[in-house]
């Protein structure tokens, strides 16, 4: 589970505050207008954005001062999820150990992760030699290999077409939740949220509201969300 306690982030004129908890195994969508602070919220949780005050707990561990790779968080960004000069297997292998020479058991785990996303036999391909959808799958394989309790998605599939994006989102939540992990996804499309998520965090005007069940929030949206959705 994830618990965010009186979090405050400030960057120049921009400020964001949040105070909420997400139960284990849930899939939560983060929606809100551009510039409201969705990426900042995920950045603060994953340790890329410095925070001013507050505390962050992952699985009851206080990770507020931990570096990104020791927070129990795996994250997919909008771009730059793979090193272009490393093969798909090497990229996935980095999730296990910072080395380019995996041991035999590690090689088996890399192969298994690539197999689960449908990329068996693509081990030695370079990211530049495969399609955008296959790159997304490889990045997802890396997240699976990382096996972290919390997975954050900052619109990693935004560059894909609508059908492929829906497919990747479904695959991601299925595979990640097989591992029992919690998923938090940023999305612009309320339909994506309704389709995949259990709960919704609405971010607006520097405030991340506590998650509410997706059916609940869509039938009776608060004023600010209503303005954003245009309903």
């Amino acid at each position, binding site marked *: 589970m994830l618990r965010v306690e009186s979090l405050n982030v400030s960057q120049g004129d921009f400020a964001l505050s949040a105070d909420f908890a997400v139960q284990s195994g849930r899939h939560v969508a983060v929606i809100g207008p551009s510039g409201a602070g969705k990426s900042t919220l995920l950045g603060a949780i994953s340790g890329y954005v410095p925070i001013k005050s507050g505390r962050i707990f992952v699985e009851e561990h206080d990770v507020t001062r931990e*570096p990104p790779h020791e927070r129990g968080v795996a*994250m997919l960004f909008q771009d730059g999820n793979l090193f272009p000069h490393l093969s798909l297997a090497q990229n996935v292998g980095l999730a296990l150990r910072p080395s380019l020479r995996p041991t035999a058991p590690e090689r088996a785990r890399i192969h298994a992760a690539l197999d689960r996303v449908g990329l068996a036999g693509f081990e030695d391909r370079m990211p530049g030699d495969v399609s955008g959808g296959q790159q997304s799958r490889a990045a997802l394989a890396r997240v699976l290999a990382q096996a972290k309790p919390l997975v954050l998605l900052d619109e990693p599939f935004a560059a894909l077409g609508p059908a492929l994006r829906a497919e990747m989102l479904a695959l991601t939540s299925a595979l990640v939740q097989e591992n029992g992990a919690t998923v938090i996804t940023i999305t612009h499309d309320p339909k994506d949220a309704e389709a995949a998520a259990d709960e919704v965090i609405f971010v607006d005007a520097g405030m991340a509201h506590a998650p509410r069940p997706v059916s609940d929030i869509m039938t009776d949206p608060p004023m600010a969300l209503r303005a954003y959705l245009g309903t």
Partner: protein
Amino acid sequence: MAQRARTIKTAVFGGPIAAGTALGLILAALLAVMSRADWPVQFSASDWAVLRFTVWQAVLSALFSVVFAVPVARALARRRFFGRAALVTLLGAPFILPVIVAVLGILAVYGRAGWISDFLGLFGLPPLSIYGLEGVVLAHVFFNMPLATRLILQGWQAIPAEQFRLVGQLGLPPRTVLQALEWPMLKQTVPGAIALVFVICLTSFAVALTLGGGPRATTIELAIYQAFRFDFDLGRAAILSLVQLVVAGTAAVIALWVLPPLALQPGLDRPVRRWDARGRLSRAMDAIWIVVAALFLLLPISAVVIKGVIGLGEMPASVWLAAWRSLWVALLSTVLLVAAALPVAAWLGQRESGRAETITLLGLAASPLMIGTGWFILIYPVADPRLFALPVTAVVNAMMALPFAVRILVPGLRQIFADYGRLSAAMGLQGLALWRIVLLPRIRLRLGFAAGLAAALSVGDLGVVTLFADPEVATLPLQMYRLMGSYRTDAASGAALLLLTLALCLFWICDYWGRHAAR
């Protein structure tokens, strides 16, 4: 941002250590020099003459280089022709051409017994004489016109192609294009180009050593050498070193304010499509400028090759031994440079401001002979400085290449941190693993280029080694200089060809290694 610093701790420590070591070596030399200077400082009439000549030749060199460069850059910017890419590459050649080799080529073309003098002799005209101010400025223009052309061409290519499309649609005449588009760009780039060439020429040594000299054509750098070598007057060498530091340092600080980014990035070989300047006259003028610039660069280089082939058989065995030593100095120097430049560049690359790497250009103001004098003074009481001739040369060469290398590496590293900093942090990549898995493979293209420049600069350097070397131990440029001094022109020409080949090969090997990087 704070979290970025966490991903590259090694650089946070390594950068300041490497930069501090370089600075410490310079400061130690400076303190040593100051300790030997005769206080209070006496400034003789000949010292004033040296100072005046130094500034005057730098002013002339800067002005001529840039005045020549503007029409050449304009012609390159608006014409597409066969060999354009080759000419742009040729503009990069003086970066790696050893100074003494170029001087030999210039003498073969413009000297008393050179091609032009021979040609004039057919008509009963007296031969040219380029020793003195003319020769020093000519050689400086040979080296710096290409640099200025690249800087200004970069400015031209930074004007968006859409603006030239609009010019074509409106049918604007060249005069209007000049006023509206080109003049504002020139106002930004030309002062910077002049300032950079001026600073480079202030501390020039090898050109003044070979083409200058005498009471009327001695630069400060050359005067340090003479005080040291001919009179062994450490006090005077020390005073002159301090003068050099103040003059070049002041100029470099002023230059920092007007300096455009250094033109070392690729992309200059793609001309922008132009619809203006189609008149016959402007086409003819551009053609003339291109031909003149190409001949200006190609004639001396061709002369080196032609005379070198003839002279190869005349080379004494000592030349081969010297080449072997030079190769080792260049390799050691390149290794030192890479070891220092990578952490410094990673350290500066984490800073948001592009101003940081500009500061490293202050290193241009540090005079190699001042550093050499200082270290001679430090070593002299404890050991025979001649034993240290080659290591000191390698270290000083690495420090001279450091500003260029940092300038080349920092933008690349900054981009890597922006693109892959988060991913590296997510994978827990730190320290050596970060360098090995992410930074080195991705910076390899720029690193190969920087190492190639450093190796070529070092193998061809005729500077601090002249202070330390004894007759037995010479590097190839020094050996070549001695052959020239004893009028063994054929042997010197052979050595020049060998040195040119070494410099080009070293550059090519490093650059080739960089280009064959993983993507």
